[in-house]
């Protein structure tokens, strides 16, 4: 399944913030986690993650620090801020609303007497 580009872009913020709620992390690990959780279906071009991280940092939702990787390379670690937690909460409410509305609609559709409606929408 190919998730559309717009949807990938829109979901990037809540995904990154949610992953960072658990613990401080860095770009490569964040991407690995997204890929693992989505069973490899949510595909980002790797490099695109970084502008997203930088934008979130600028908006004050996350904080960055330079540290070292276990084998001594420079590595930039990110963690969520209080501001970011609030933002995530708001985002979460929005996504849940969309999700709930769609569920409702699709549920009603599947109960509808004319299942033809679903043809072609797969």
């Amino acid at each position, binding site marked *: 399944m190919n998730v559309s580009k717009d949807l990938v872009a829109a979901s990037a913020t809540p995904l990154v913030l949610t992953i960072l709620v658990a613990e401080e992390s*860095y*770009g*490569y*690990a964040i*991407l*690995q986690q997204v890929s693992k959780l989505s069973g490899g279906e949510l595909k980002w*071009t*790797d*490099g*695109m993650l*970084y*502008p*997203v991280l*930088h*934008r979130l*940092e*600028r908006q*004050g939702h996350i*904080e*960055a620090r*330079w540290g070292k*990787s276990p084998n001594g*390379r*420079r*590595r*930039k670690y990110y963690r969520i801020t209080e501001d970011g937690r609030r933002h995530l909460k708001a985002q979460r409410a929005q996504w849940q609303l969309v999700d709930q509305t769609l569920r409702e609609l699709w549920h009603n559709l599947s109960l509808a007497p004319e299942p033809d409606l679903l043809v072609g929408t797969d």
Partner: protein
Amino acid sequence: MTDYQMLQTQIQQWRTYLSREAAMDSDDIDELEDHLHGHLDLLTSAGLSPDEAFLVAVKRIGDVNSLSREFAVAHSERLWRQLVLSSSNEHFDSGNRRLVTAVGFAIAAALVVKIPALFGVEVQSAFYAINLSLFILPVLAAYLIVQGEHDVPRWPLVASFLIAAAIVNGYPLAEQSDTTLLTILHLPIALWLVVGLAYTGERWYSSEGRMDFVRFSGELAIYYALLALGGGVLMAFTMAMFDSIGVDASGALGEWILPCGAMGAVIIGTWLVEAKKSVIENMAPVLTRVFTPLVTLVLLTFLATMLFTGHGIDVERDVLIAFDLLLVLVTGLVIYAASARGSDSPPDVFDWLQLLLIVSAVIVDLLALAAIAARITEYGVSPNKLAALSENLILLVNLLGAAYVYLQFIRRRFRFTAMVQWQTSFLPIYAGWAATVVLVFPPLFGFR
């Protein structure tokens, strides 16, 4: 070469390739390289050879063009030059065409300044001193509009130049009067705002856009100083050479080469800002980092000396101007330090130092103001004093605000963009006050 060395070379080449993108800085490339290594480690441990792994890893990170575009959206401030002046694709033809345009405008600027000479006006006259900015700045604004790529409302700009010209030449400004001197000093400042509008267009309404104009101004000043230095040396040579064959070239040099060269150099300097790029990004951090500690040291020593010797500030005629210049210097250090600072990095020692600089400048200036306040009432108001005093107050308010913003930034209450917003919000105030001095002061003080 071993596989490992080959991989290192490939990574180095990839880094060089990325570093050509203006939207990415070396920190970003470090971060991407760390990502690249993440892939490389995984892929080589899965059995791929280093160069296979490198190809796959680079491919996964994404192609440079679309990557650069995304970085550019996230870091628009890094692209100020490209956004404003140059076209996105730097073809040789377009570079050539730009040079021809620049030379054309430079020649136009050089000739415009000689038009009044046709009617017998001397170069040394007050007319030239008053109107100097009206000769060059409209040409510069036109050049920026022609070379720029955004819509600029043209008629307001034309109107402001015409109104300024009508007023300063309509006022009966005497050769030697105070108000004439004030007009000569303030008209360029007011009109520089009009150039700013031509440079930024609609981006004028964003603090980023105005900061770009501040960067442009600093970079142009550096190039102009270099061109002036070179021009001076060249003129000295010319004099000496013609002197050796018994021809006095000083007349031609003073009447033609100096004024025309000085005008044309403004356009050529502007072209250089675009064509050569990133002087200010290299110079501003160096200059502010050298002079912030030095100026702070001078100010603190001054305060300590005053304290120990018990000498108050001796108020003489020009002392207020000196303190104005001090505040201009400190404001300049603050604004160019802000222009060069990444807005994402956390507060560091240098931010403390900037705060110390501002606070010590404010204290010195308050002491001077206290000393002057008594004398102003004693001698009554003159146009010079009123202008100097009000400018001192404007800069003082700016620095007090800047100190507050720095303090909040260091305590992590504000983001650094607050400083950029505060500083850029003063640009219209400076220009507005300069315009007031030009428009209101001469009639207010009876053109004396």
